C-alpha cells in the first residue's frame, strides 16, 4: 500500500480492496464483516435502539483519545442512553486525499480496540476519498443498534419533580483537553479527554435500578445545554448546586484563562442520570463501583419552581439561571 491515501483508494477497484483487506478487516474484522456482502445480517430481538453520529474533531489525535475511538464511544453511548445494550456499529469514512496511510491505520486500529472493549461488532462500512481540501483529514460516521432491556426506556421528557439529578464524574475534561491542543494556544494542561464507552456501566445501573427516568450524555454543549433540553422537554425545573458539580481544578483554571464556562464544555465519558429521589443513593452505590463512574455525585433536584429552566445555586448561596448557549464557546478576552 502507498504511504498516502490516494483518490484510487475510494474508487471501488483494486486499490479499494487492498485498503479494506489490509487495513479495515485487519483491525475491525469479524465473521459478519469479513463476508464483505452488500449488507450485514443481524440477529437481534426487538425493540431496538438506533443512533447515528458524525465525528469531526480537530486535532484528530488529542490527549486521551482520537477520532477513531471517539466515533465508537460516541455512538455506543448514545445507544446505551436509551437503556439498550449496543450490539452492532456501521462506520462510514470520508478521507482527504493525501492523508498518511499510517494515520488512517492508527485511527482504524483505535476504533477496533474501542469496539472490542465495548463489546460491539462493526458489521458494515464504507470509505470515500475526496480531493485535498474537501474535508479536513478524516470524518467518520458511525451508526449503532442495540437491544432495549428496560421498559419504559429512559427519556428526556420523563424528569419529574422530586427526582434526583446525578452526574458520573468531573465535567468539561474532553472539551478542555481538545481546546488546549489547538494550534497557537499558549496553554499546556495535564487534562486528558474522558472519552470512554459507558455501556457496561449503564447496563449495571439499569439492572440494579431500572426506574431511571432520564439518561443523557452531556457531549457538545455540556451539562448546561443537556439540562436545559431535559427541563424543556419534561416541563420541569432542574435545580442544581454549583458546589456539588465536580470540575477538575485544571479545567476550572483553564476556563478562567480562556473565558469559558466548564458547564458548557463537552464530555465524552460521563452521563447524567435523573431518577426518583429515594433511589439516588442506591444508584450512586452502583455507579461508584465502576471505575468510569467513580466520581458519581448528586448535583441537584428536579422541581416545579421554574418550568423549562435550569437554576443554579452558587457557592455564595445566590441563585442564577443556567441558560442554553447560543453557539459554540469561543476563547474570549473580555
Amino acid at each position, binding site marked *: 500500500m502507498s504511504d498516502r491515501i490516494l483518490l484510487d483508494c475510494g474508487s471501488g477497484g483494486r486499490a479499494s480492496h487492498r485498503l479494506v483487506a489490509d487495513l479495515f478487516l485487519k483491525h475491525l474484522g469479524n465473521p459478519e464483516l469479513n463476508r464483505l456482502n452488500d449488507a450485514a445480517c443481524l440477529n437481534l430481538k426487538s425493540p431496538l435502539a438506533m443512533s447515528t453520529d458524525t465525528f469531526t474533531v480537530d486535532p484528530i489525535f488529542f490527549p486521551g483519545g482520537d477520532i477513531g475511538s471517539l466515533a465508537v464511544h460516541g455512538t455506543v453511548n448514545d445507544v446505551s442512553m436509551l437503556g439498550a445494550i449496543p450490539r452492532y456499529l456501521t462506520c462510514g469514512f470520508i478521507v482527504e486525499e493525501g492523508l498518511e496511510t499510517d494515520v488512517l491505520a492508527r485511527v482504524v486500529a483505535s476504533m477496533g480496540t474501542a469496539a472490542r472493549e465495548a463489546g460491539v461488532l462493526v458489521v458494515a462500512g464504507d470509505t470515500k476519498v475526496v480531493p485535498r481540501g474537501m474535508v479536513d483529514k478524516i470524518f467518520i460516521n458511525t451508526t449503532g443498534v442495540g437491544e432495549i432491556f428496560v421498559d419504559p426506556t429512559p427519556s428526556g421528557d420523563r424528569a419529574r419533580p422530586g427526582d434526583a439529578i446525578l452526574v458520573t464524574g468531573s465535567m468539561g475534561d474532553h472539551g478542555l483537553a481538545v481546546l*488546549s491542543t489547538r494550534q497557537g494556544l*499558549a*496553554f499546556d494542561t495535564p487534562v486528558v479527554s474522558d472519552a470512554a464507552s459507558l455501556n457496561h456501566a449503564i447496563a449495571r445501573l439499569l439492572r440494579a435500578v431500572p426506574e431511571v427516568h432520564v439518561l443523557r450524555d452531556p457531549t457538545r454543549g455540556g451539562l448546561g445545554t443537556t439540562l436545559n433540553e431535559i427541563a424543556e422537554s419534561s416541563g420541569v425545573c432542574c435545580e442544581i448546586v454549583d458546589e456539588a458539580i465536580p470540575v477538575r*481544578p*485544571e479545567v476550572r*483554571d*483553564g476556563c478562567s*484563562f480562556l473565558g469559558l464556562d466548564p458547564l458548557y464544555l463537552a464530555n465524552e465519558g460521563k452521563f447524567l442520570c435523573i431518577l426518583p429521589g429515594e433511589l439516588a443513593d442506591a444508584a450512586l452505590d452502583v455507579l461508584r463501583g465502576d471505575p468510569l463512574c467513580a466520581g458519581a455525585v448528586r448535583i441537584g433536584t428536579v422541581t416545579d419552581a421554574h418550568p423549562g429552566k435550569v437554576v443554579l445555586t452558587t457557592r455564595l448561596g445566590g441563585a442564577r439561571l443556567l441558560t442554553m448557549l447560543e453557539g459554540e464557546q469561543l476563547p474570549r478576552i473580555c
Partner: protein
Amino acid sequence: MCLAVPAEVIRIADGVATCRLGEGQSLIRASLMLLPDLPSPGDQLMVHAGFALRIMDPAEAEETLRLLRGGECPIEGDATACAAIPGAPANALRKA
C-alpha cells in the same frame, strides 16, 4: 471588560514567563514586555491576552483580608480624590 488571570512565574526565558495557572499543573506563557520590572520565579503575575500587566502584591491581598475580617472596612485615607457630595453638610469632609 478585560479578563485577566493570576499566574505564578515558574521560569523566564527571552522575555517570556512560563507560569502556573491556579491550583493545578496547567501552564501558560506571558510576555513580560509591558512590565516595568522583571519578575522572579514565585511572583504572581496578572496576565491578559498573552501579556503580564502587573506583578501582584500578596501583602496587599493579606492586608485587605485582615482588615475586612477585623471588621474594618474600607481603609481610611490615601484617596485618589476627595470632595463633598453636592448638597451634603459642609463638615462632611472632616467627619470621615
